[in-house]
């Protein structure tokens, strides 16, 4: 009887396993309007004033909204109104100060949340007002919040002082520190550069004047980043991590098109359509950030991005976004091939099979998949420390020629081919494509390989054949890095061997990251490899990396090369606050020409992102910035369900083969055992 039961249980298991599907989602969702996206790293925080990583912003940009946003399709990137009715224009005051006036939309509501009960019993939501935007800016100044962008926003008159007052009050009076957060901010006094007016007249918008101590046109780009997303004071006060409540870093209350339905950050994040979003409640406004655009860049129409079915429709198109935590790239790609993700990057391991030569493989194209290539707004480069006695400014013309020669020895095309499957474009200047000032036709005369010219430059520098006349041996330089992985070492080895062809002896000095940073801070480095990805699409965000006052060793800024040239600094000052006009372009060209000769950097490449999109996903356009994009995506759920079934037919023969093999191996063994036993 017991044997019979066991056999029945085994048979049931076998039958059940044969009937199993590999579908990781509930079958009820098969035809649902859901977007399936993987994420490789859990968000560190959901606090918009603190979050700075791509993974944080991927979630936050869909849950919170900012005063300004980027046009989804146009390139170069263009700002559009988000929570405001128009992109503000600068208004100069006589004393050098500049004012931007933000006119907020009325009728925008926060997603419903229990925290609003703090503002009145039974309340679950409320309307956005200008003071919520002020509250967000106050939080940036609050030392307890620890926002990483305080320096940038300190250009707002009185913002930094507000933070200092707050810190002093908290330190001096424990009772003050125990007050509710909005009360603390109120008692800390106003910020001179933030003046707002709230009106009950529904026809009049809330108006916020932001005064900067000096012209800084790039501030508008910062108002398109989650740092300036308005947050309700009730959420910050309520979600304090006490008495079983979440911390504010784990709980988002925004005004965005989606709200968080489930937040298990190390396994699953679910965003669902926010029914209170102004785009859903007031489609008749046809607000730019809540309506699918009707124009884009050249070629968008051909790529199906301006389909009549989408243009002018109210956003968002999908009801839910299912995000699944996938640490490794290969399982993501495999699930994408099975139809369980709507978009995927191509892991470098599978790149040659999926997209050799930058073209999607015929087999994948036949399945309706599409390949999107976007150049990221980033630049990777090799930097020289300009305060170093050998490669820096102190050696004058000699070191300039040395830097020029070293630049001529590095083959960026080959570097990209060997290490990045060709995913990138060789860089000729610090500015990547997609930015004002980038010129496709420009060729840096020191960024193509010319070993003969490099050798003659070296000879002119006094290092004939790479020999240092001081020692009689090959000139010894140090390539400093904080990455000790073997993969990084191979990359650096490529560079070192390129310079070896000139007779230069460059040693890789790999230390821990902290030791490396310490070296850079002290100016004890010589050559280094670094990259920069744009915060916002303005040339200033790249060219400031070589601005003298930003020198890392002297001033702790991000200019790790410590490049300081009065001519460059003057040009930078003239360029940074100008609009994108012909004069600005001419200034950028002059700066580029200076860098071309001075060579504080050997510009290497601008990375390129290859993304695969399923045939059923519509309106997907890659962006080089982390901006709210999921509200524009649409899916053909019926097509997806059909293809998932077709692509995941169970292959049963290996199970039968293994079972057969087991029988073949077991039977003689059991027979021998029984025979010997008897």
């Amino acid at each position: 009887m017991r044997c019979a039961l066991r056999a029945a249980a085994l048979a049931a298991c076998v039958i059940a396993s044969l009937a199993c599907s590999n579908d990781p989602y509930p079958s009820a969702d098969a035809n649902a309007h859901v977007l399936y996206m993987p994420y490789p790293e859990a968000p560190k925080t959901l606090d918009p004033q603190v979050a700075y990583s791509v993974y944080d912003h991927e979630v936050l940009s869909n849950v919170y909204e900012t005063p300004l946003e980027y046009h989804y399709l146009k390139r170069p990137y263009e700002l559009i109104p988000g929570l405001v009715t128009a992109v503000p224009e600068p208004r100069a005051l006589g004393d050098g100060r500049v004012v931007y006036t933000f006119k907020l939309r009325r009728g925008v509501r926060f997603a419903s949340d229990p925290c609003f009960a703090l503002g009145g019993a039974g309340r679950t939501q409320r309307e956005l007002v200008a003071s919520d935007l002020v509250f967000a800016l106050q939080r940036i100044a609050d030392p307890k919040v620890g926002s990483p962008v305080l320096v940038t926003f300190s250009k707002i008159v009185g913002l930094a002082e507000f933070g200092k007052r707050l810190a002093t009050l908290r330190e001096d009076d424990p009772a003050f520190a125990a007050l509710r957060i909005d009360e603390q901010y109120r008692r800390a006094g106003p910020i001179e550069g933030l003046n707002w007016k709230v009106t009950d007249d529904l026809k009049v918008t809330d108006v916020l004047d932001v005064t900067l101590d000096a012209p800084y046109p790039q501030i508008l780009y910062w108002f398109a980043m989650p740092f300036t997303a308005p947050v309700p004071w009730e959420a910050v006060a309520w979600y304090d991590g006490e008495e079983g409540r979440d911390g504010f870093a784990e709980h988002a209350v925004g005004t965005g098109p989606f709200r968080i339905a489930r937040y298990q950050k190390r396994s699953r994040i679910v965003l669902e359509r926010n029914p209170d979003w102004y785009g859903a409640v007031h489609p008749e406004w046809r607000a730019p950030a809540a309506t699918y655009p009707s124009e884009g860049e050249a070629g968008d129409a051909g790529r199906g991005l301006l389909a009549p079915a989408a243009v002018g429709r109210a956003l968002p198109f999908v009801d839910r976004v299912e995000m699944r935590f996938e640490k490794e790239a290969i399982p993501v790609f495999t699930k994408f091939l099975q139809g369980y993700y709507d978009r995927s990057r191509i892991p470098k391991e599978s790149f040659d099979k999926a997209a050799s030569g930058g073209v999607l493989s015929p087999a994948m194209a036949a399945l309706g998949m599409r390949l999107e290539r976007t150049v990221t707004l980033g630049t990777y480069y090799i930097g020289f420390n300009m305060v170093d006695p050998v490669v820096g400014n102190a050696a004058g013309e000699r070191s300039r020629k040395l830097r020029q020669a070293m630049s001529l020895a590095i083959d960026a095309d080959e570097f990209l081919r060997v290490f990045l499957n060709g995913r990138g474009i060789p860089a000729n200047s610090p500015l990547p494509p997609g930015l004002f000032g980038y010129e496709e036709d420009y060729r840096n005369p020191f960024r193509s390989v010319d070993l003969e010219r490099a050798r003659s430059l070296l000879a002119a520098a006094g290092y004939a054949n790479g020999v240092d006349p001081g020692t009689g041996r090959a000139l010894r330089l140090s390539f400093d890095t904080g990455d000790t992985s073997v993969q990084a070492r191979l990359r650096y080895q490529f560079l070192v061997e390129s310079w070896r062809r000139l007779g230069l002896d460059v040693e890789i000095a790999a230390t821990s990251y902290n030791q490396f940073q310490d070296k850079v801070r002290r100016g004890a480095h010589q050559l280094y490899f670094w990259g920069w990805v744009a915060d916002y699409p303005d040339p200033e965000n790249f060219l400031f990396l070589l601005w003298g006052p930003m020198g890392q060793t002297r001033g702790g800024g991000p200019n790790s090369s410590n490049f300081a040239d009065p001519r460059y600094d003057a040009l930078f000052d003239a360029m940074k606050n100008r609009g994108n006009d012909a004069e600005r372009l001419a200034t950028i060209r002059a700066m580029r020409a200076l860098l071309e000769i001075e060579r504080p950097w050997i510009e290497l490449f601008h990375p390129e992102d290859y993304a695969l999109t399923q045939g059923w996903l519509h309106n997907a356009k890659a962006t080089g910035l982390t901006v709210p994009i999921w509200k524009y995506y649409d899916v053909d759920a019926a097509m997806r369900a059909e293809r998932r079934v077709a692509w995941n037919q169970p292959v049963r023969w290996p199970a039968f083969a293994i079972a057969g093999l087991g029988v073949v191996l077991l039977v003689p063994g059991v027979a021998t055992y029984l025979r010997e036993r008897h």
Partner: protein
Amino acid sequence: MEGHVLGNAFAAAIVLLAALAAWRLRASAFWRERLGEIARRRPIATVVVALYLGVALLDSVAWRDAQPGEASVEARSLLDRAFPADFRERSYSAPLAAVEFYGGAALAHPGRHLLGTDILGRDVLHLALGGARVALLIGGLTSLIAIPLAIALGLAAGYLGGRTDDLVFFLLSTLASMPSILLLVALIMVIGRGPVQVCLALAVTSWVNFCRVVRGETLKLRELDYVSAARALGVSELRIVWRHVLPNLSHLVVITFVLTFSQLVLSEAILSWLGVGIDGSWGQMIDQARDELARDPIIAWNLGAASAALFGLILAVNLVGDALRDVLDPHTLRERT
């Protein structure tokens, strides 16, 4: 002093020491007989170990080719000189392939890379052979630091007893209670990366077990009759240790050296995996292959060559070590007689 000059000096010292040891051992009938027996018992393993030693020595003798008015950046070893100076490609190529693995461009040396080339186009056979020097350096140098340390402290603890024993045993217990890999990584982070630093760190973690064995053996030896007799005759303690205790530990030293050696080489492979190994080691080649195994199509020759070289050395050393123990350990000797 430059790296290759130091390497040459080290190689010369090793050869000199080996010659001296051979000359001394030839005079001893005991050692002559034992070594002959090892060679008879494990002929292939002995030859394999000798081959690895030979390759490592060839890779240790290097010099620069300086032309008039030029400075050669790289010192090339005898092993390097066995391969053409420009024996490399642009990137990956499969063993004996005529074209590049990706893109299919013609190779500069078609069909001549027996084990293929790595991502930088370097010949994998050359790299694998070069790993022998690093492996033997790790095993040899670390043993040279760890074994004398273990003997000195083990002898002191076992022979002197009392406070010295307490102190040494406390040190042993403390180190033995720490996870050795974590300790290794921490030490390397503090003292820096480099062959000598890695050997030092490995030595700090590998002397403990041997020290415990030496201490136990010394505790036993110091109570034996001939030691008591020497003490009664007024022989100094130092001379007793030198003349009567230490020689009776020599078999342990030899056996431990061989058995520790393979453990050390494997430990370096683990350290390389953790990103703190030595350049040019097999561990680093295996670490590099981490990404290559996940490629589609797979690149296995880099991993295969490094693993085979590592496996070959460890197996051969272990076989020779077993034979050594058999012929030197008094217990096994007694069992045989």
